[in-house]
C-alpha cells in the first residue's frame, strides 16, 4: 500500500508551501512521488534519496583526497577549530530548523564567533532598510484576500518562487478578491522581459541599476510633483499612470527581490520602495513583502533577534553582541582578512559568494555541514553530511512573511546519519569540555 503523507511543508524557498503530499513505499522508506510541489521542491525531496549520497563525515587529507571519519571525530575537529580561533565565522543557518539555529547560537556565544546567515547575500539590504525606515507589511493570506494591485519589483517568482503567484499573489480567489487574477492588476519592474513580466498588465523595463531613481520618481508622482521626461529610461507619463493606479487600488502590494537588493544602492533601493508603500498608505492600503530566498533564512533572523537582538551580521567575539553590516558581515570580514576559521551550515557560500571571498575560505581552517556535495564542501577541510531538514527531520521554519510553520519528517535519514541539530549538540558539548579544560 502506498502511504500518503499530507500537509507536508516544502523546505526549498521562502514561500514555504505547506500543502504538499508525499507518496511513500509500503515500508515508508522510499519517497515515490511528491504532489503539489513545484519542480524544485519535488527534486529536493526526491534527491534526498540519491544512491550516491555521502552519509558519513569526511576529512580532507594533505593530498586533497577525502577520508571518512566518525561524527565524534568531526565534532571534535569542529569544536577545536572554533575554540582555538580568535575570530571564527559561523555562516549559513538558512536551510535548517529553528532548533538547530538555537543550538548554533549557543555555540556561537560559547566560542565568541561572528555569526551571519544567507541574508548577507540575499535580503540583508532589506534588513538594513527596515532598520532605517520600518516596513508596512502583511501576511501572504492578507494579500490573497484583499490585494488588487500587485507589483513585482526586481523579482521573478515564475522562476524563483514558482508557486507564489498561484498560492498568494495573483491567482487565488480570496475573500475580497473572488475573481482571482481578474481582481488584480499586475505590475512588473525588471530590466529583463522575464516570464513574470510576460504575465503582467504593465511591465516597466527600466535601465538596470536605476531602481532608486525610479522608485523616487514614483514617490514624486504620488505627491503630484513634477518629473523629468524620463527616469531610468521610463517616460514620465507611465510613471504617473503607475502611481495613480497604485493610489486608486483598495489594497496595493509590492513584492521585491534580488533585483533591488543586489543592485547599486542596495538597502537604499528597498528603503525607497518601503517609502513608496508608506506614502501609499496615506491614500489607500498598501503593504510590501520581501521575497525571501531560503526556506528558513527568516527564522534564523528571528532566532538571533530574540536571543541577541539582531537578525544577521552578529559579532559575538567580545562576549556581547555587536552588529554592523559592512564591518561584521561575512563578505567584508573575508575580504578584509578579519577571520581565522570558517564554519558553514545550511548554505553554500562556495557557490553564492563572490569568488574572492571563497578563496579566503579555502585558505582558512573550515568545516562545512551540508547534506550535499557543494563548492563549499569542496574547499572545506571537513565535510559533515547531515539529514535533510523538512524531509528526514522536522522543525520550525519561518515563511517570507515571518509566519512560522513546522516542517515535517517524511522518511528516516540513511542509517547512522545525524541531523544537523544532533551534530551541533555534539559540537556544543565538546566546546564546553574544551573550555572547561582551558
Amino acid at each position: 500500500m502506498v502511504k500518503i503523507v499530507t500537509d507536508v511543508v516544502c523546505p526549498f524557498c521562502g514561500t514555504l508551501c505547506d500543502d504538499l503530499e508525499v507518496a511513500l513505499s509500503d515500508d515508508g522508506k522510499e519517497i515515490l512521488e511528491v504532489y503539489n510541489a513545484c519542480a524544485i521542491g519535488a527534486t529536493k525531496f526526491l534527491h534526498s534519496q540519491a544512491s550516491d549520497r555521502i552519509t558519513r563525515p569526511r576529512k580532507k587529507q594533505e593530498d586533497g583526497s577525502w577520508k571518512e571519519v566518525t561524527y565524534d571525530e568531526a565534532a571534535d575537529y569542529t569544536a577545536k577549530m572554533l575554540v582555538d580561533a580568535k575570530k571564527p565565522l559561523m555562516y549559513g543557518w538558512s536551510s535548517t530548523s529553528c532548533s538547530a539555529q538555537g543550538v548554533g547560537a549557543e555555540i556561537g556565544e560559547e566560542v565568541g564567533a561572528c555569526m551571519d546567515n544567507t541574508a548577507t547575500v540575499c535580503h540583508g539590504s532589506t534588513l538594513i532598510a527596515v532598520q532605517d525606515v520600518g516596513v508596512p507589511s502583511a501576511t501572504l493570506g492578507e494579500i490573497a484576500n484583499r490585494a488588487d494591485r500587485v507589483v513585482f519589483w526586481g523579482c521573478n517568482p515564475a522562476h524563483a518562487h514558482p508557486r507564489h503567484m498561484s498560492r498568494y499573489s495573483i491567482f487565488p480567489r480570496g475573500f475580497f478578491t473572488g475573481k482571482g487574477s481578474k481582481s488584480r492588476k499586475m505590475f512588473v519592474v525588471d530590466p529583463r522581459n522575464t516570464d513574470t513580466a510576460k504575465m503582467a498588465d504593465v511591465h516597466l523595463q527600466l535601465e538596470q541599476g536605476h531602481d532608486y531613481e525610479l522608485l523616487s520618481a514614483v514617490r514624486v508622482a504620488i505627491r503630484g510633483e513634477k518629473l523629468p521626461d524620463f527616469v531610468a529610461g521610463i517616460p514620465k507619463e507611465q510613471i504617473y499612470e503607475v502611481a495613480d493606479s497604485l493610489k486608486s487600488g483598495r489594497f496595493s502590494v509590492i513584492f521585491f527581490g534580488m533585483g533591488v537588493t543586489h543592485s547599486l544602492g542596495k538597502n537604499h533601493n528597498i528603503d525607497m520602495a518601503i517609502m513608496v508603500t508608506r506614502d501609499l498608505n496615506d491614500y489607500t492600503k498598501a503593504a510590501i513583502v520581501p521575497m525571501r530566498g531560503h526556506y528558513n533564512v527568516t527564522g534564523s533572523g528571528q532566532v538571533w533577534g530574540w536571543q541577541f537582538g539582531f537578525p544577521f551580521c552578529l559579532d559575538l567575539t567580545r562576549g556581547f553582541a555587536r552588529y554592523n553590516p559592512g564591518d561584521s558581515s561575512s563578505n567584508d570580514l573575508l575580504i578584509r582578512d578579519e577571520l581565522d576559521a570558517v564554519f558553514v551550515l545550511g548554505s553554500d557560500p562556495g557557490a553564492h559568494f563572490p569568488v574572492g571571498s571563497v578563496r579566503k575560505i579555502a585558505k582558512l581552517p573550515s568545516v562545512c555541514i551540508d547534506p550535499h556535495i557543494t563548492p563549499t564542501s569542496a574547499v572545506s577541510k571537513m565535510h559533515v553530511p547531515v539529514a535533510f531538514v523538512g524531509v528526514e527531520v522536522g522543525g520550525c521554519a519561518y515563511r517570507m512573511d515571518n509566519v512560522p510553520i513546522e516542517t515535517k519528517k517524511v522518511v528516516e535519514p540513511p542509517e547512522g546519519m545525524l541531523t544537523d541539530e544532533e551534530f551541533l549538540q555534539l559540537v556544543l558539548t565538546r566546546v564546553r569540555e574544551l573550555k572547561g579544560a582551558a
Partner: protein
Amino acid sequence: MTDYLIKNGFVFDPVQGINGDKVDVAIKDGKIVDAGDVTNPTVIDATGMTVMAAGVDIHAHVAGPKVNMGRNFRPEDKLFNCTAGSGIKRMEGGFSVPTVLRTAYLYARMGFGFSMEAAMPPLYARHTHEEIRDTPIIDQGALPVFGNNWFVLEYLKEDEIENTAAYIAWLLNQTKGFGIKCVNPGGTESWGWGLNCEKVDDVVPYFDVTPRQIVSGLIKANEYLGLPHCTHIHGNSLGEPGNYGITLDTLKIAEGIKPQNDFGREVVLHNTHLQFHCYGGESYASKSFESKSKEVVNYINSVDNISYDLGVVTLDETTTMTADGPFEHHLSHMNNLKWANTDVELETGSGIVPFIYNPKTFIAGAQWAIGLECGLFIKDPMRAYVTTDAPNAGPLCRYPRVYKWLMSAKARDDVLDNTLKYGDRIRERCYIGELDREISLYELAMMTRAGPAKTLGLSHMFGSLKPGLEGDVAVYPYNPETDTDDPEKIEYAFGNAAYLIKGGKLIVKEGEIVDMGNKRTFWVNAKVNENPMVERDIAEKFRRYYTVTQNNYTVKGPHFVPNPYVIEVDSTK
C-alpha cells in the same frame, strides 16, 4: 528539593492581611508551607528587608512577532548596552525591547515570577511560544487576540455567544493561549482597508458589526466558558485626545455582567493601559488637552466588575508596539520615525514605531501624570495594577521607578519641578497636583502581585504567601522602617531583589542570578460541547482563506511548549 525559611523580613501579603509584620515564610517541595512544616531548611536572613510573594505582571509585550520586529528593526536600541554573560547568565541586550534573556533576568531582578504576554496573533503563536520557551526563569502565558478575528466578527454580528465560545475554546487549544485579548475592536480589521473604528458604535466595513457588539460578545463568551482570566480589553481610540468618553462607553458594556468562574476572579473586564484611554480635550496642545483619569477611575470605583492596569509613561525613548495597527500608523505621522506594520490574515494586525516621551514636551509630561493618577485615584488597589504596558509607555526595567513615583509625592514633585519643562502647566491640566496620596507597600503588593494574580484567575497559585501556593517569594533590600527618607531607595530596592525563590528554587541569591529555574508555559484548555457548525466554519475558512492548512496551524509538541501548565475548564455541564 531544598526547603527554605525566610526569617526576620517585613512581610507584606494583603491576601492574608499581613502588613509589614515580621513573619517567617517557609517553602517546602516548591510550595509555601507553615513555618513549622520545614525541616532542616536553608535559612535566608531577611532582616531589614521587605518580603512579598513574587510579582505577577498582567500585561507586557515581551515575546512574539512584533516584539522581535521591535528588536530586529532597532539596532540602535542596543548600541552600547549589550552585556556579556557571566556565571550562568548568557549575553543580553536591548533597552526598550530587551532580548529574551535580558527580559528573564530583569524580571528576576525585579522579583517577578509570572508574566502575561499581552498580545499573541494566533497565526504567529508558534513564534510567541518559541520566545517564551527561550525566556528562562519566569512562568508565562500569552493572550491570543480576538477583537478583529473574522470568526468572532461573523458570530457576534448575530450575537452567537455559544459559537463564539466554541471558536475561542478551539483557538486557545490550537495556539496554547491563556485567555481573550481584544485590541481596538473592529478597528484593526478596518485597518485592512486603511480605515479605523473610533467609537463603540462605528461599523466595521463589510462585517457590519460594531465594537460594542464585539466587546459585549467577548465578555459573555468569556463568562460562558468560565475562563480563569476575564476579557482583556484595549479599547477604541487609544491615545486620542478626548477618548475618555469612548473609554467610559466601553467600560459600561460590562454593566450588570457577573463573573462566572471557578478561580475566584471577581471582574469581567480588564481595561489595559488605562492611561492611554483617559484623555480629555481636542488636541495635544496644552490649551486643550486635559486629564480625565478621575472621571474614568471614579466610574471604575463605582462598579465592582472592572479592573485595569496603569500603563505609566516613564519619559524614556522607547518602542511602541500594538495590535492596534491604525494607531501606530497615526503615530508614525506624528513623529515621522520608522514604522513597521503587519496585517495578519483573518485575525489581527500590528504596528511598531519608536517613540520618545520627551520630558521637555507638555504632552509627554501630561501622559506621565495621567498614568500615575490612574494609580492614585483607585479605591480598591486589588483592581489597579502597575504596568508600563512595556515597552509602549516605558521599558520593562522602569517598573521600580514607577513604584517610586506612586509611593512618594516628593519623587513626583521632583519630576514636576525639575524634569518636566511644563510641570506647572501639567499641574493645571491634570490632577497630579491635587494628589498627595502615597501608595503603601501593602497597597503595592496588591497592585503588583495579589491583584493581578486574582484577575488572571491564578490566585490559587500566585500573589500571596498563603500555605499551599507556589513557592514564589521575593526579598527586596528595602527597610520599611528606615528607608523611607529617600524615594530613590524604593527604585533601587525593587530593581535589585536580594532573593527570589521561584517554584521553590533559589533563582536570585544575594542579588545574583544563580539558577535558570523551571520555566512553565501556562495555557487554558477549555472544554465545550461539540459544535459541528463551528467545526465546519473553521474547515471552510482554512480551505478557502488561510495560507496554511488547518493541520499546520496547530501549535503542538515539545518543541514549542516543552513544559506546559494546563488549566482545564469545562463549560459542557
